[in-house]
């Protein structure tokens, strides 16, 4: 595959910016947390499993979802915290399924550890449910080949990368990320598309992710 191959359709970069909306819902115990996880809007589950990616762009001191962070820090349930942190978000292409997996992990843990069900967080340390309101806008960046794609990737915001990798796949329920879709459909490069689709973006910071995608695409240009 040549780097100069012109895409059948250019790739138009969009960006996605989010506003956090408070729901007024809070949980003080595992039971309440589980009940609310089943009831809250999908945009809440999305917020609490993706917020950390944007707030800690260079190094993440937190486990990869708020539920894991809270059960560990506020309730001292380290084992459940580890179970929740290690839920493989990549396996899910629908928020509904991710929600089910999180709730099932808590219910399963409570069955094995009934005494954990009566623990409550200290005053002021409840879990507050927040949802993401997303605004999606086209940017002025358009890639016509892999060279353009790399150049633009170097300068767009992490919000744009975030939109095409995370939001497109899980929240908008597309089968893979937008970059892989375009590389396969418009550049005809199934191999690179597959490599990008196989990246686990949840175990990297967004800056690391940007670098990893650039490296893969560069490798394609210089060692086709």
């Amino acid at each position, binding site marked *: 595959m040549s780097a100069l191959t012109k895409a059948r359709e250019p790739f138009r970069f969009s*960006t996605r*910016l*989010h*506003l*956090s*909306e*408070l*729901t*007024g819902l809070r949980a003080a115990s595992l039971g309440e947390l589980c009940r609310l996880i089943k009831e809250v*809007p999908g*945009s809440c589950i999305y917020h609490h499993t993706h917020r950390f990616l*944007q*707030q*800690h*762009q*260079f*190094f993440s*001191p*937190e486990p990869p979802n708020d539920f894991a962070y809270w059960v560990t820090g506020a309730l001292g349930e380290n084992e459940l915290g580890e179970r929740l942190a290690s839920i493989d978000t990549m396996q899910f292409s629908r928020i509904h399924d991710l929600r089910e997996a999180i709730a099932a992990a808590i219910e399963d843990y409570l069955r094995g550890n009934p005494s954990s069900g009566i623990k409550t967080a200290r005053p*002021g340390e*409840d879990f*507050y449910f*927040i*949802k*993401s*309101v*997303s*605004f*999606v*806008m086209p*940017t*002025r960046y358009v890639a016509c080949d892999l060279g353009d794609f790399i150049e633009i990737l170097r*300068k*767009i*915001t992490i*919000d*744009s990368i975030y939109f095409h990798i995370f939001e497109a796949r899980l*929240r908008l329920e597309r089968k893979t990320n937008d970059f892989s879709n375009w590389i396969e459909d418009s550049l005809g490069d199934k191999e690179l598309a597959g490599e990008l689709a196989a990246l686990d973006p949840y175990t990297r910071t967004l800056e690391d992710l940007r670098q990893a995608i650039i490296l893969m695409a560069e490798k394609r240009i210089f060692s086709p």
Partner: protein
Amino acid sequence: MIKIEDYIPIVGQSIIDDLKLIAERLRGKIIQHINSTAVGGGVAEILNRMVPLLQQLGVETRWDVIKGGAQFFEVTKKFHNALHGGPVELTKRDFEIFLETGQYNVEDLDTRGDIVFVHDPQPILLVKKKKENKWIWRCHVDVSEPNEEVWNFLVEYIIRYDSAVFSAPDFSRKLPIRQFLIAPSIDPLGDKNKELPQETIDSVFEKYQIPKNKPIITQISRFDRLKDPVGVLEAYREVRKYIDCHLVLAGGGASDDPEGAAVYAEVKEKAKGDKNVHILLLPQNDIEINALQRGSTVIVQKSLREGFGLTVAEGLWKAKPVVASNVGGIPLQIKHKYSGLLCHSVQGAAFAIKQLLNSPAYAKKLGENGREHIRNNFLITRHLRDYMLLFLSTYHKEDLVYL
């Protein structure tokens, strides 16, 4: 005048490009900010920076200040303390004064913005003028455990707004209107946070006769009981048993805070006789505050309650190790042992300060992590973005908005 492009070296070109993209969507709308003071305090400070930047981005923005006499501001100070959950005695007359001044402003102030953005409780009554335009109430106060009498009084007005905005998740309450979470911010190019030459820093320390031969612990805050200056003094005394150091307690006043002078006098009295304690009642001088923070070894913010605690972000932006209470918006700024140290008591604060003074490499790492966390989340560019999205949200009810 600072230009929006001046932020590019700090946050990158693409962040500024995004701001321009959002601003285009607000063309033709008039945004009207309303608060109670043009100078002093965090709200005025943010608006002084933000309004010109919004205008540069092409968003037509105006800023109005309500009128109120000394009696009104004494009542609103009581309200402020009551919302923070402090012990306050309120009389029937206090509520009458609030309503009278509120009504005067309802009649006096023109609220013709397409989006009227009201800050804090003082101007809250203005919502009586709501027509077809959009109204947002911005709460800068920690209302996690408010005095119910005051909250119930205010909530009658809050629910007439289209949306409310809070600084931390635990400030939100069950309300029948939309509520958003928006943290405040600092301006890295403002006098309080811009880079300073070493000579400027040294000259400020000389001016206030603070020797730089020992570690310096500093709390910058208004003289307000909720900032617990006495607690800081007690923590310093614990530290001083083991480490020779100086304490700086410095802050100004705001025109809507009549209690400051009394607290200042009380702290001064308690520190009498200790030459290593420097209590400075500063006029509004951001360069001096900046210099004091930059010349300090450890920054402290031992508040009992906090709307947000922007002095924490200021200290972290200067890559200083910060010890701060786990209240209000502070835990959003500090992840314990990663970007600073959180405390819950005088003893906890003293222990954390000692740890940082005895482990300079650890202190340096916390400060560096803190600076990056502030760059990503608490600079004015992020705040501009959130406010513009908030304005847009008043025209869209859905969770996913294609613009």
